[in-house]
């Protein structure tokens, strides 16, 4: 700010030093002060100019590391179905969260039947009737491999029966907690898809299919979800552990072949026995002695005593099969835990007590799960880069602040030059 004015005493000046202080100086002292300040600012500018190219190189290195990391993830996960990009910072920082459809495949080998069940989940928009619940879809494929009478692409009467019973079990009996599958009410829910492939059919198909589907549901895990106010973050298995479904109970189907009222029912009929029977009564019972469904195929004439006897027998079998499913799932979780322990112990410091059993089991497990072990090792190595990435991002933010300071320095320099010029003019005027 400059004002045309007349000076009473041209030999003395009030100089603004900074921070609100003013000092009365003579002409020589004022000139010396401004020269020293000019030299100080020049030194600061030179220092900043040296730091800038180094910080830009660091930024380029970080961007290259990000690209390499993305390529690694894409190469190791061919089943990636979608990439969600969420901007975390304003300064060119991106975090990629991979959404992957989790697929657990369970093959149940009965003595006669072979059924392949695959469960996947997907984000969908719910129907308007029940917006706060997830949905379950059952798809049945009667493979021509299973029986010569099956046609490819057509369900047939047996397929329709099987799909109907599985839909009753999964939807109407309340096996899965559907409310826990809701992410945003009326906007986003998890949709569970159950694909049942019949590979070999030798009678009692519904019994075998129900056990296979229930075991697959217990074994299935969905990705973890973090719901923010304006976005939904879905984590891959490298960031967070997937979450199993909430299973309330396991209704086990038991088939009873009925020929006549006077004769007892046939338990677990084979394919040839089913041809001779009039029909089959299917009783679905869970471990808590609750009858979930009563279903009949064929043309049956029953009485109450026969039905109650079938229910009693089915309850005992449901307890046995439920214990079998629990033991299978527990054993699988234990093996998975040992595998993950082995992987974790190679990268983190663990007590010796934990390392020794893991090493012993390593030789046994590696032959069975080669692919899983390799994938998880790579994922954990990629995970360790996250810490370096965070440190590098912190450095970028610091360099950004320094840049801001350098801009302020330049503007001050211009002001100083103007002041010096005006002072020189005053000197010239005073001498003349």
């Amino acid at each position, binding site marked *: 700010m400059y004002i045309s004015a007349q000076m009473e005493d041209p030999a003395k000046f009030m100089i603004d030093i900074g921070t609100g202080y003013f000092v009365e100086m003579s002409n020589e002292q004022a000139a010396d002060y401004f020269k020293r300040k000019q030299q100080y600012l020049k030194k600061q500018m030179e220092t900043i100019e040296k730091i800038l190219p180094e910080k830009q190189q660091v930024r380029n290195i970080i961007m290259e590391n990000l690209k390499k990391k993305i390529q690694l993830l894409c190469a190791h996960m061919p089943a990636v179905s979608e990439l969600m990009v969420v901007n975390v910072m304003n300064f060119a920082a991106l975090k990629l969260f991979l959404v992957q459809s989790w697929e657990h495949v369970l093959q149940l080998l009965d003595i006669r039947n072979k059924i392949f069940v695959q469960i996947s989940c997907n984000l969908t928009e719910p129907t308007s009737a029940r917006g706060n619940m997830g949905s379950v879809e059952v798809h049945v494929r009667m493979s021509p491999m299973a029986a010569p009478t099956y046609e490819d692409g057509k369900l047939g009467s047996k397929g329709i029966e099987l799909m109907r019973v599985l839909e009753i079990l999964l939807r109407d009996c309340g096996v899965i907690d559907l409310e826990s599958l809701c992410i945003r009410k009326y906007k986003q829910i998890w949709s569970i898809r159950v694909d049942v492939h019949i590979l070999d059919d030798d009678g009692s198909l519904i019994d075998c299919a129900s056990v296979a589907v229930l075991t697959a549901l217990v074994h299935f895990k969905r990705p973890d979800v973090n719901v923010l106010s304006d976005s939904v973050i879905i984590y891959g298995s490298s960031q967070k552990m997937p979450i199993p479904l909430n299973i309330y109970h396991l209704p086990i189907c038991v088939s009873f072949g009925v020929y006549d009222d006077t004769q007892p029912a046939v338990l677990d009929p084979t394919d040839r026995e089913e041809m001779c029977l009039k029909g089959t009564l299917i009783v679905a019972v869970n471990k808590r002695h609750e009858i979930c469904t009563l279903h009949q195929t064929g043309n049956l004439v029953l009485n109450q005593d026969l039905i109650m006897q079938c*229910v009693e027998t089915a309850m005992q079998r449901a307890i046995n099969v439920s214990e079998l499913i629990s033991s299978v799932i527990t054993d699988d979780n234990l093996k998975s835990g040992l595998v993950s322990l082995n992987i974790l112990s190679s990268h983190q410091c663990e007590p010796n007590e934990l390392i020794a059993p893991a090493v012993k089991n390593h030789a046994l497990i590696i032959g069975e799960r080669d692919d899983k072990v390799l994938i998880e090792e790579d994922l954990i190595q990629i995970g360790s880069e996250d810490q370096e990435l965070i440190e590098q991002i912190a450095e970028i933010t610091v360099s950004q602040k320094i840049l801001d300071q350098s801009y302020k320095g330049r503007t001050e320099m211009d002001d100083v030059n103007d002041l010096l010029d005006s002072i020189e003019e005053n000197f010239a005027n005073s001498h003349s």
Partner: protein
Amino acid sequence: MNILSEHGFRQDGRRPNQIRNINCKLGVYSQADGSAYLEQGNTKVLCAVYGPHDSRQRSRIHEDRCIINCQYSMATFSTVERRERPRGDRRAVEFARLMEKVFESAIITTMYPCSQIDIFCELLQGDGSHLATCVNAATLALADAGVPVYGIVAAVSSACSLGGVACVDVSAREEMAIVPRLTVATLMNQDQIVLIELENRVHHQHLEVVMKSACEASEKVRSCLKTAIGSHISSALGLASNDVNSA
């Protein structure tokens, strides 16, 4: 919300073992071989039977017996919410399949080889117990058509309330999402069950109570259907009303 009040009455004033009023009319259509209109409370069903006639689909002929073909549809105005698809959805196909199984056991199919009997059910107003009412209406229509059967099929649905009390002939307000419901159809007496269909979970001790109560209620329905068929035959033959018991 419980089905029964603390005094033992239901929402519409019935006792647990009471069925709703049954009004019926046989011979509604003249062009059909047999037809019936049945009201069970506020549930109203129209049923038409065609046949036995030659089967138009050559691939479905059985040389030793006839084929039962059932079709079930709900009118769009039958429930409070308008439905978009009156037939062909999952529930309608399931009901048709269950009715086919019931009447394959009830009709003497060996008397008409290489033939087909068509049963069409239309639900005009729905107030619970849809499947049972359709089975009862189809029984009346078959009797009107003169198709030989082993016996009169009587169907009843029964629900298990809190505390294990069985309530027969459930209405729409009693068909809540978690109430276990059992639909039973009996043939000549209550010991010949041709249809048993359970929805939702029920403890096995309650199952026996509900099933027994449903079979007993089916006897009441059967007596109503017998009376209706007897009066229809009497009026058709011009006999006196005191000969109803002979039917």
